[in-house]
């Protein structure tokens, strides 16, 4: 994309460097001059906000690792040591814990923005797939991080989630023992989770780099979903979007610090302040809020199907609920990207959002009474949305007329 670059090395040294490692040219092309549609709204700032979240998690995480002890006898107390004795430890620890929730809040907004505006459609399928991959890595990282304080919720989350793998026929039990490093969740489990929890964020960072690379090949999608036609449709990334993104980040930090400083435990569960006891399961075991929709799907399956037992079937639905996201670009075949110009899709989109929130709610409820039935209905709708509604709507829907270009739509809006 060197055609966007206006970079000419200013000095002899810059020229020398440019011929060997064109890092200044690269930064200028991709961070400053990159042509970006001029009509991006604030929902598009969440990409930058997510980079900030990853940065906060890595910095605070590296610091916590300086004081944390990954040993079942000492882990719980070492986290308390951080909160009580380490200089500023209470705040750094709460930024990391609250940061996980904020990271997921931002990623859900980012994903649902992409779903509404059709950002997964050609030529951005790889971009979308890499994004889903980041989401999966985030879930793995968050889960393992949640185990580290070694409270009741930590230990039981580790037990329950590793048990998912036992559902796999034949290799299930050996695989379970391999993952745990023992017959139950114990010190080897905690140690490997610590190691992987430290490793995965850097893998995420690498996939984020690929994600941005894949973004910069076709360029950004935009709220009307019409391709960029000429330079009147775009603005250089800097200073326009650097500033807009930075403003978005500062706004996002306000609820972030609200939780981190004034209610650092409100997003967690009180039971995690009790050290893990493998003899006593807490009365209500609930994952962190960001796992609830998928947890609800896992739990909803309480029946056998043909030769598949309910446990394996639940795991299949659970994995399927994420795998199906990878396939989204091929399930929604409509040519029009933006939901704003798709009258039928729009309705089903919001139904899907409500259904997803419903699953979140159900994930937190006990598996009894009406909740069991509702969970099944919502789980079914989740899959129906992808495999039935999207393909059918794509075929029968008559989209509204699209503006011919971004600049035309922008002008129409400002003169309206």
């Amino acid at each position, binding site marked *: 994309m060197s055609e966007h670059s206006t970079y000419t090395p200013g000095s002899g040294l810059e020229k020398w460097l440019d011929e060997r490692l064109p890092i200044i040219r690269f930064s200028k092309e991709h961070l400053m001059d990159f042509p970006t549609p001029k009509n991006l709204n604030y929902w598009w700032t969440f990409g930058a906000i997510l980079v900030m979240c990853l940065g906060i998690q890595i910095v605070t995480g590296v610091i916590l690792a300086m004081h944390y002890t990954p040993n079942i006898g000492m882990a719980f107390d070492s986290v308390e040591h951080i909160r009580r004795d*380490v*200089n*500023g430890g209470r705040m750094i620890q709460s930024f990391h814990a609250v940061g996980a929730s904020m990271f997921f809040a931002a990623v859900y907004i980012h994903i649902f923005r992409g779903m509404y505006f059709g950002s997964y459609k050609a030529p951005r399928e790889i971009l979308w797939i890499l994004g889903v991959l980041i989401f999966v890595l985030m879930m793995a990282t968050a889960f393992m991080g949640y185990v580290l304080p070694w409270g009741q919720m930590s230990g039981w989350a580790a037990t329950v989630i590793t048990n998912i793998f036992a559902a796999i026929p034949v290799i299930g039990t050996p695989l379970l023992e391999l993952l745990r490093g023992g017959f139950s969740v114990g010190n080897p489990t905690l140690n490997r989770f610590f190691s992987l929890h430290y490793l995965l964020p850097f893998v995420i960072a690498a996939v984020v780099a690929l994600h941005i690379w894949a973004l910069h090949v076709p360029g950004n999608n935009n709220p009307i979903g019409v391709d960029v036609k000429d330079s009147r449709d775009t603005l250089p990334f800097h200073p326009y979007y650097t500033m807009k993104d930075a403003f978005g980040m500062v706004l996002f930090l306000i609820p972030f610090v609200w939780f981190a400083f004034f209610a650092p435990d409100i997003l967690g569960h009180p039971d995690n302040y009790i050290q893990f006891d493998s003899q006593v399961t807490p009365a209500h075991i609930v994952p962190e809020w960001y796992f609830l929709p998928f947890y609800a799907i896992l739990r909803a399956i309480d029946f056998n199907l043909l030769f598949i037992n309910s446990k394996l079937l639940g795991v299949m639905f659970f994995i399927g609920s994420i795998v199906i996201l990878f396939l989204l670009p091929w399930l929604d075949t409509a040519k029009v990207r933006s939901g704003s110009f798709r009258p039928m899709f729009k309705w089903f989109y919001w139904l899907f959002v409500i259904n997803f929130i419903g699953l979140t709610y159900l994930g937190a409820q006990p598996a009894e009474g009406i909740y069991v039935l509702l969970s099944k209905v919502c789980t079914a709708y989740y899959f129906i949305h992808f495999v039935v509604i999207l393909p059918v709507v794509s075929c029968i829907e008559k989209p509204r007329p699209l503006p011919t270009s971004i600049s035309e739509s922008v002008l129409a809006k400002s003169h309206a």
Partner: protein
Amino acid sequence: MATEAQHSTTRRDFLFVATGAVAGVGAAATIWPLINQMNPDASTLAVASVEFNLNGIESGQSVTILWRGLPVFVRNRTDKEVEEAKAVPMAELRDPETDEQRTKKGHENWLIMIANCTHLGCIPTGESGEFDGWSCPCHGSQFDTAGRVRKGPAPTNLVVPPYEFISDTLVRIG
């Protein structure tokens, strides 16, 4: 856009400078706690000063106690050792310090010093060497009865930590 910018240069510049300055303050205020967390924490600082009871250490005996993670010699010197230490001419010392400088007035028999050789940190053996003081098994440094280096590679005398006598039998080190 370029012309627009030139119209309101001062207001625009002020806003940019103010935003930049506030961003700078924010960045600095964020970075400091991220560095400060590496400083000794409250539990470490709480044992930075220890009280030690000298009761029961007879003349000619020494004990090694732990202070800030370092071994510390506490020796109740015999009169002979004190006299020997005081008799050494300053000119013979590599790191000249009088015995008075290394002890507390009125408690000259008590020698309290960090037990790590000033060469490379080994712990010297007591009541040994040519000077009746300490000798280091690692590289052969020798110290006299006031813990001053007399021979070998150690550049300075054994270090006397900050301490004070709270009473005749109670010292606070650190």
